[in-house]
């Protein structure tokens, strides 16, 4: 290590002491990391939970065989759920609604917001395909009555219908409704509702744990200077700096 870096590091440590933060060296920290006990089984479960919740049914089945980890949900139900999700992602909303009802009619009955969003998506798809008349009819007959029940539904409906007013939607203020991201948003909403109806958490645990890591590091930052991991995707331990 060059003298320059040694000096820089010492300065950093002095500064840290001035703010009365505890300085933990890389060696000390690595010892603490080594003392942590993480069970392999638990990591396998965490990965399985991700595969299952995100709908990677084949991969989940393979992981069960390759690692002996049992999925926390019946794998058959994933296939149905993914079919619904995929239908929305591809713009086949009618098909998706039918499939959800086949799965469990209570999902849409008890979730008016989700049902509205699916119908809205249906309207968006009609507009996308240039079926103006059909779109207007659908908006008046199916969506407007729901708007009367709920102010926020009405606003969203108006926003969607506004798409019809523009010749060039790529340049209009509500154009993002036609974006693929709107389909994905609706698809993940349906996905979450189905998972909830199956008594399963709607989000995988892994992203929450990663967020928790970011949070835990920032909490510890207040009291100590220690080697952090800044890049989650490579899990690289950085030298402590102030």
């Amino acid at each position, binding site marked *: 290590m060059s003298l320059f870096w040694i000096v820089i590091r010492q300065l950093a440590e002095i500064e840290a002491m001035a703010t009365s933060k505890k300085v933990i060296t890389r060696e000390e*920290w690595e010892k*603490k*990391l080594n003392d*942590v*006990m*993480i*069970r*392999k*089984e*638990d*990591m396998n479960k*965490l*990965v399985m939970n*991700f*595969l299952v919740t995100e709908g*990677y049914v*084949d*991969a989940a*089945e*393979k*992981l069960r*065989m*390759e*690692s*002996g980890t049992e999925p926390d949900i019946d794998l058959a139900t994933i296939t149905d759920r993914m079919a619904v999700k995929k239908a929305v*992602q591809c713009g086949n909303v009618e098909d998706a609604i039918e499939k959800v009802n086949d799965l469990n009619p209570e999902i849409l009955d008890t979730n008016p917001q989700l049902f509205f969003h699916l119908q809205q998506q249906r309207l968006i798809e009609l507009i996308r395909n240039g079926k103006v008349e059909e779109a207007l009819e659908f908006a008046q007959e199916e969506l407007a009555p729901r708007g009367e029940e709920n102010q926020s539904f009405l606003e969203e409906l108006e926003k969607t219908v506004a798409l019809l007013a523009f010749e060039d939607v790529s340049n209009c203020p509500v154009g993002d409704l036609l974006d*693929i991201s709107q*389909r*994905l948003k609706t698809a993940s909403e349906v996905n*979450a509702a189905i998972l*909830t109806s*199956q*008594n*399963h*958490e*709607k989000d*995988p*645990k*892994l*992203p*929450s*744990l*990663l*967020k*928790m*890591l*970011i*949070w*835990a*590091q920032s*909490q510890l930052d207040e*009291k*100590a200077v*220690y080697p952090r*991991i800044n890049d*989650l*995707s*490579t*899990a690289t*331990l950085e030298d402590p700096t102030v």
Partner: protein
Amino acid sequence: MGSNNNNNNKKKNQDLGLYFLEMARASSSMGVEDEKEESPMELNTINSSGGFLVVSPDKLSVKYTSVNLHGHDVGVVQANKPAPVKRLVYYFEIYVKDAGAKGQIAIGFTSETFKMRRQPGWEANSCGYHGDDGLLYRGQGKGETFGPTFTSNDTVGGGINYASQEFFFTKNGAVVGSVFKDIKGPLFPTIAVHSQNEEVQVNFGQKKFAFDLKDYEAQERMKQQMTIEKISLPPNVSYGLVRSYLLHYGYEDTLNSFDLAGKSTVPPISFAQENGFDEQDIVYALNQRKTLRQLIRNGEIDAAFAKLHNWYPWIVQDDKSSTCFLLHCQKFIELVRVGALEEAMKYGRVELAKFIGLDEFENLVQDCVALLAYEKPQESSLGYLLEDSQREIVADMVNAMILSTNPNAKDLHGCLHSYLERLLRQLTACCLERRSMNGDQGEAFRLHRVLNSGKKGKC
């Protein structure tokens, strides 16, 4: 390859082997990872203010037996142990059997040196909720407006929330209020009686609480979770970590299915290019690692040995290494599993006996050999050896050994720990460090608990 490299390999081999040997031994004691801390179980009869009160023989109820004359003849009694701190919440309850002449009953927390003839909250380093006026006292003579009064037949609880650093009190199962905990050091659950015939029973958790503590804890965790969920993550980071995990451990079939599915999602996830992420290192020998894992998981140890001799002779060249030892142990275990006890015995004499007397191997050799003593070894205390997880450790060891033969492998850590595991270790270490800087107060992060919580969908 120079001799220097060979020496390096040998050293690596030893270090990795020892790591997994440690894992194999530790698996016998796994499951007892919860931190045991002593909790209050009864009242302390030794330092209570003798003369003013009587503690029942079961040490779980007190009665004020004299007539109170002044403020220095309070009947105070502490629990036999301080409230444990390595948890989210500590909580206990009292039931007022008889409010006596004046109902001057109090519940609270006091430090070890508390003056045992005063109400909790009247002196420094104490805090108490008083029944006669419903006020909260925190070391000053004057109380603060807090909650309702309490009297005969009421159940009152006192708790410490270590996450929010607050005391909280309950009456008949509902939270009355909370107040910042400004006292440091061990705190003893404390109750006081101060007029004739006052009688109070205490419940340190032996009986069901009137208050739903589980629900309170769940809500506290939820509060923290809400803050955390607002943090945003780089796109596809979870996806990438799962992928690198599968690569690391050589779960090749899973990986292929995962990649295939990733391509057909809308929009397709093209992780590798997107992040300019060089996965050469972990793709290394993927198929061989998968094959060996499968053999070991199927209990085909001879076949695994043969493949290793063929592909990576140096890994198995030293028959006294930890690698060979664990493989031999596993072979022995597989023989016991199928009931080939005689063969197991022979195998043990040839392959395991040479490890007897070597400290680092001793325990495991003994455990393995002792399997022979049981008619139903699965049900014995050595049953852990026959579990799937033991095969997994051996498979993980072979996997790490092969990874370490990669000329591009930077360090041992890369062979031992997936990115996912490094992040989980960092998370655990950060939480533990922060807690230890906070007087060990609060709950530690436990992956195991997180995984087993929320089985029932909450939305």
